[in-house]
């Protein structure tokens, strides 16, 4: 079942001098099993939007429907067991390594499952599985999370959310501050989870990731949804108005076209087909 925002408005610090409207009348429909990218400049409402997905925030007006759960501004309409929604929608915050607190890695990962009523044995087993998924082997299980490197810490934190086995995984800037190798590993991890039929919602500023992984892009601006498109559609027109940067892939095509090539953007899907097109273009020359 899909995610539906209907006319959601959210206001921080209502009725005070700090009052700030972060979302303005947002209506948005997101299908399941997609890899969705959420982009937009800082302060455009991305973080506020994703916090509505697992009821950390409730709308000031309007409602969000996720599967059978309703997160509404109206208390009466709101689902009673919204806590269970947090198992359905896993939310990985930016710099999640700051949420680690247990003595050992396995305990920290098992913390989430325990909160959702798993027994200690099952919780540990689930924790081990999700640590394997993120690529941390047995040698990490009993180490203290605080002695790990930054990238490893982040993997542990992500495993902590994966252990809940959410159907929707929301990740906020997961590659920020990681080296390129670790960043690629992290993205491959989300891609493999996506392949298993889960919905991924990725908040990012990196258009290369959007171009490479996303099925659909939601562009936000000033608390509103400015555009919902496939990456190809989005990058086919200028995007400077959203303070977004064209991915290197499209930059390359346009640069080549400006310098004598005649590549057809609509027919090039990935790096391989680009290479082929360039080779053909050269042959024609």
């Amino acid at each position, binding site marked *: 079942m899909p995610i539906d925002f209907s006319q959601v408005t959210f206001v*921080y*610090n209502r*009725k*005070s*001098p*700090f009052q700030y409207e972060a979302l303005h009348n947002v209506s948005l429909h997101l299908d399941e099993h997609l890899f969705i990218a959420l982009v937009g400049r800082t302060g455009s409402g991305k973080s506020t939007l994703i*916090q509505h997905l*697992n009821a*950390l*925030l409730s709308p000031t007006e309007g409602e969000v429907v996720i599967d059978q759960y309703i997160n509404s501004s109206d208390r009466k309409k709101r689902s009673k067991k919204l*806590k269970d929604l*947090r*198992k359905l929608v*896993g*939310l990985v*915050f930016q710099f*999640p390594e*700051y*949420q*680690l*607190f247990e003595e050992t890695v396995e305990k920290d990962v098992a*913390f*989430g499952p325990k*909160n*959702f009523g798993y027994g200690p044995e099952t919780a540990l087993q689930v924790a081990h599985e999700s640590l394997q998924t993120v690529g941390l082997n047995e040698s990490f299980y009993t180490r203290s999370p*605080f002695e790990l490197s930054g990238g490893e810490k982040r993997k542990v934190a992500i495993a*902590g*959310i994966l252990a*809940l086995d959410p159907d929707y995984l929301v990740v906020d800037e997961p590659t920020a501050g990681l080296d390129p190798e670790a960043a690629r590993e992290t993205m491959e991890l989300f891609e493999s989870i996506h392949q298993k039929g889960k919905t991924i919602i990725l908040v990012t500023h990196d258009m290369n990731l959007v171009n490479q992984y996303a099925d659909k892009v939601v562009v936000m601006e000033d608390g509103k949804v400015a555009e919902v498109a496939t990456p190809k559609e989005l990058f086919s027109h200028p995007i400077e108005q959203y303070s977004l940067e064209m991915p290197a892939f499209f930059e390359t095509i346009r640069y080549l076209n400006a310098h004598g090539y005649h590549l057809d953007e609509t027919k090039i899907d990935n790096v391989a087909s680009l290479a082929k097109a360039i080779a053909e273009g050269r042959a024609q020359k």
Partner: protein
Amino acid sequence: MNNFTMGRYVPYNSFLHRMDPRAKIFCLVALVVAIFMDFGFSWAMTFTMDAIAAILILVLLWSSRTSLGQVLNSLKSLWFMAVFLLIIYILMPVGTSTWVAFNIGTYPIYWDSILNAAKILLRLVLMIELTMILTSSTKPLDLTYAFEWYLYPFKLIGFPSHEVAMTLSIALRFIPTILEDVERIMKAQTSRGVDFSRGKIGAKFRAIVSLIVPLFVSSFVRSEELANAMECRGYDPKAKRTRYRQLAFGWSDVAETVFVGCFLALFIYVSVTKFDAFYTWWGLQLPS
């Protein structure tokens, strides 16, 4: 931040906001002293004076544009202490009066104790509202400047007034940052199924641990980063430094300080002379 922190600086432009922070601190201390003046067991006079103080403070609250919600919030956090104090003071006999209100079993509860408890509670609330007015109408940085100014005389005896003021300003500066951290970590742990508002004692304890530990870690990281950043810019606590923002003591500050001074003087006069308007006006004999 969605929840409104009590006593947080709110940028309005009232006369209280424009007042010099040094004058404000003086006035706060003077008013607190005035509130806590002792008028013996003349309850009519005590509550009259407290009512005068309360009216002044209500006027100040109103003019500082502190919202009613904020005031109620500050009282809400006080209720546990209030109940505790009330019980202790009501059970404790004070004064010499044998004016019994009622008995618990054979233990007599005196009217004096009840009135005394009410007095203490009222004064406590007034004091808290006063400090709230101060912090919500003064920028934290201005507050530390004022503190530093008050600490100047102690420099003569080698007291590191600048260092103390710097420590204070850093501490104040980091309160909102740490509150943001708290909120961020709480949200992250809530996403992992922690329930901070409900749950049994054990679960609640684990919830608190899951908040405190990451908070400590990030606070230590922050303080180390700050220390490094300060050293990189050659910070030397002993160096003489000038200041971009100068505090200016204006005529309105003088007037306000004098007014509060008179207010305090009135309270001291009434307290010392045991002046009791009620007995004097009605021609009654003062109880000895």
